[in-house]
């Protein structure tokens, strides 16, 4: 059924983490942009690699595309749009910020805020002195043991 019907581990072996070097004709700034971009794009064949790392032929094609478009003066956003138009958001290792990913991007921080508020409320609520002082471990142990003896006694 699946094209990659082989066990996934062996599929990984076809996905060596090795890209053939390209002869760099880019300016240093463009080269940096190129590296950043290809390190954020996901390869569709070897799906757990960036196109920078993958040696799959498709990854090589995509690297070539990215390079060509940088040379043609296209912006990062335009290059990403070119790829998502064809392959969807799946190619972006950094998911775009849009309604369907709001939960993903904001969720953790909302959660943190909530957790901090809860913790603060917890400390404040408990600040009212009602409970007895802490019993030390030894004393507690003695209590526990006494309880056991009682249990035993009850059974016998």
């Amino acid at each position, binding site marked *: 059924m*699946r094209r990659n019907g082989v066990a996934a581990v062996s599929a990984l072996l076809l996905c060596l983490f090795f890209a053939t070097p390209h002869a760099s004709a880019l300016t240093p700034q463009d080269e940096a942009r190129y590296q950043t971009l290809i390190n954020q794009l996901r390869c569709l064949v070897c799906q757990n690699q960036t196109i920078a790392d993958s040696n799959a032929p498709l990854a090589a094609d995509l690297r070539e595309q990215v390079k060509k478009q940088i040379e043609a003066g296209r912006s990062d956003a335009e290059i990403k749009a070119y790829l998502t138009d*064809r392959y969807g958001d799946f190619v972006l290792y950094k998911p775009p910020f849009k309604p369907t990913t709001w939960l993903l991007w904001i969720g953790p921080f909302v959660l943190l805020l909530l957790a901090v508020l809860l913790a603060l409320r917890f400390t404040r609520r408990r600040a009212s002195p009602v409970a007895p002082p802490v019993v030390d471990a030894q004393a507690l142990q003695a209590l526990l043991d006494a309880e056991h003896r009682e249990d035993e006694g009850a059974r016998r």
Partner: protein
Amino acid sequence: MRLRYLVPVALLLGLLVLLGIGLRHDPREVPSPLIGKPAPALSLAVLGREGSLLKTEDLKGRPVLVNYFASWCAACVDEHPFLMQLAAKGVEIIGVDYKDTPEDVQAWLARHGNPYRTVISDPQGSAGLDWGVYGAPETFVLDAQGTIVYKQIGAMNERVWEDRIAQHFGSRP
């Protein structure tokens, strides 16, 4: 007050449902963003007809299957008999020979038989890139307006055809 102690159970239920749904999906399949959109531009040499090009406009007017395949692709051999059946029923299949050489594909077609009305060559995979192809075989279903209505990733088979594709070919075979 005691309600908050139920939060973990609730979260667990949600998680279980989510994981249960997840079990039924194939995580490796990347759905195409091109579905519902007009087929991307295409202009490729027709195999065996020197100087003749096939363009996107040529795909309009009737439903067709556009099948990306290659002589190096193992799963293409698996789906091949079914494509032969479809062709025999009169379904028009356009073959795009993906990242391959004319010699190899001629030999492959001679050996297995040719289900394609037309075969066009995409030796560099540049058309494949525009169509969002990431392997072979992949099959696009185009309606009469030239809109992509479905994409099958991986080998085509009877079930996919009956469930997802046959409807677009109307009452014809």
